[in-house]
């Protein structure tokens, strides 16, 4: 077989993957870009040409940018809490402890439940007069709290549910990281006379930095897509208090049926996210690994 034939032969093996890639990533992306340049809405559906008019409107859309800001706050807030809690839980069941296997599985349960089902349950729990949350706090003379009907409490409720559901993911990644660490550095630290806090700060944490960065980034990306919890728990309310970018795009696109505008919002969201995530990833590496990496 001559060189060209061989090259074609080899390249053809890439085809299945390439086709899937085209079908599920490239086509939707390109199509969305095209739609965002159209005035597709409920009145005049179809791919007419509207130029960058949608994008101009996006830039002046206060509600969208507020949603973006709110989303950033919620994502960073929940992910940080998840990281701290997940790390603590992982450290707890890392070493030889009683019922270690049982706890490891127990901690993973929230992650395994369906987000919508779980959100419905939490909505019940948070119900102002009938829910067990206020009942329970009432035992200590606290509350009742307007969990889902006051702006600040609703944000807290959404964040709480997010944290409850996704801490296990953090826990899982960090536990896997901890279990893969070599033994010697810990022995060396013991010989050097380091106590548990010094050992954590100088051995465990630095060695886990790469895993930490990975886990934080994955969770940040996931948290930026927060949707089910908001949809079920508060529907973005009260008012727009818990409305996130994804939920706002959903409202504009699938409830108001402004397909073209929603597409423009999506593309803007995508670009902002790519830029932000890149910056955050670089920052994390610099902070956790140090300048030289």
């Amino acid at each position, binding site marked *: 077989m001559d060189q060209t034939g061989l090259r074609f032969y080899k390249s053809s093996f890439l085809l299945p993957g390439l086709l899937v890639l085209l079908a599920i990533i490239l086509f939707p992306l390109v199509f969305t870009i095209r739609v965002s340049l159209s005035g597709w809405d409920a009145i005049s559906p179809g791919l007419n040409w509207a130029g960058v008019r949608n994008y101009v409107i996006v830039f002046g859309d206060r509600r969208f940018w507020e949603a973006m800001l709110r989303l950033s706050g919620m994502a960073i807030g929940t992910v940080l809490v998840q990281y701290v809690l997940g790390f603590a839980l992982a450290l707890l069941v890392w070493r030889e402890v009683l019922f270690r296997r049982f706890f490891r599985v127990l901690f993973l349960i929230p992650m395994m439940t369906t987000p919508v089902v779980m959100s419905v349950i939490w909505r019940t729990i948070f119900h102002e007069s009938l829910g067990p949350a206020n009942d329970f706090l009432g035992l200590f003379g606290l509350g009742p709290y307007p969990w889902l009907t006051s702006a600040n409490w609703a944000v807290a409720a959404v964040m709480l549910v997010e944290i409850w559901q996704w801490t296990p993911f953090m826990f899982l990644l960090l536990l896997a990281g901890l279990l893969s660490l*070599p033994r*010697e*550095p810990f*022995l*060396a630290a*013991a*010989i*050097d*006379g*380091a*106590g548990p806090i*010094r050992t954590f700060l*100088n*051995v465990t944490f*630095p*060695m886990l930095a790469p895993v930490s960065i990975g886990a934080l980034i994955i969770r940040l990306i996931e948290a930026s897509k927060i949707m089910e919890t908001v949809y079920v728990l508060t529907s973005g309310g009260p008012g727009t208090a818990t409305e996130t970018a994804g939920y706002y795009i959903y409202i504009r696109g699938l409830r108001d049926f402004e397909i073209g505008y929603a597409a423009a919002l999506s593309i803007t969201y995508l670009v902002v996210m790519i830029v932000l995530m890149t910056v955050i990833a670089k920052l994390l590496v610099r902070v956790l690994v*140090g300048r*030289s990496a």
Partner: protein
Amino acid sequence: MATIHLEQVGHSYGSAVYALEKTDILFEDGKTYALLGPSGCGKTTMLNVISGLLYPSDGRVIVGGKDVTRMPTAKRNIAQVFQFPVIYQSKTVYENLAFPLRCRGWDKARIAPRVAEIAELLGLTARLGQSARRLTADEKQLVSLGRGLVRNDVSALLMDEPLTVIDPHMKFDLRRRIKQASDKTRHTVVYVTHDQNEAMTFADEVLVMSAGRVVQRGTPQQLFESPCNRYVGNFIGSPGMNFLSVERDGDRLLWQGFPVFSDERVGRLAPGAELMVGIRPEHVAFAKDGVTGIPAVVQGVQHHGNVDVIDAVIGSERLKVKARSSLAVRDGPLRIVLPVERTRLYVDGTLLF
């Protein structure tokens, strides 16, 4: 500085067979010992028992007259260097070396001169300000060692194959620096290795281990010249000792019909024992003019720089000979001599004399 006494110490992991058989071992103060043996022979187990990373299932560990059998590592005043260099990645070399002192609550004014002294000893002075992560593997290993040396309470220095992951061309230099440092500080050093060259050049005394037991203990020279059994003879030296099956003829021993040994004690040996004569490849000589020698046929020569390892056949047996390569031995017939003062007699695999 202290003597280390393992009193009837043995260890088995779970219900498995003993990884370390019960033995009494004494490491004297200020001397350097090497534990030598193949992988899985129990050397690291013994080291971990001394350092306290492992509590032995039997016996007592006595360091400097104090029973430390159940004492945690941190309280034992022991420094250990591991196979893989351990450094604190996020710290500079200086901070790494200062770390054990900080853990012991020294104040800054005392730490600085001590760290400078140790850095000087290890030749790391120029590296003090650098991030430890950026060092080469051999420098990292020196930092690991330095963290042990910097403490003034260390009674013993344990090293677990510290040169294994170091590039060959850096090994020599690193070995010299470790040796220099340990000579100056005069700690009791226990050095684990599976590399005989390391053990022989580094230690005052070598303990050859096999299957959880110390097989022979002695100076490098003793191990080389009079290995106590076939295992040690084969393990030490490159290539190992030649073991030749001999037959008894009165007071004489015959190998392939040629007399190789003669002693009145031979005549008193119980009949039926398996008799072997051991001789180092280095000690086999070629017959000079006027000496009959034993006729041999050379069947292959390996060049090892300035020495050749010669594979010779005599009758039904093979013999390895080490000779200067300037002799330019070629394949073909040759006459060899086995000097009597270098031959050792083994009865049933154990050294007799």
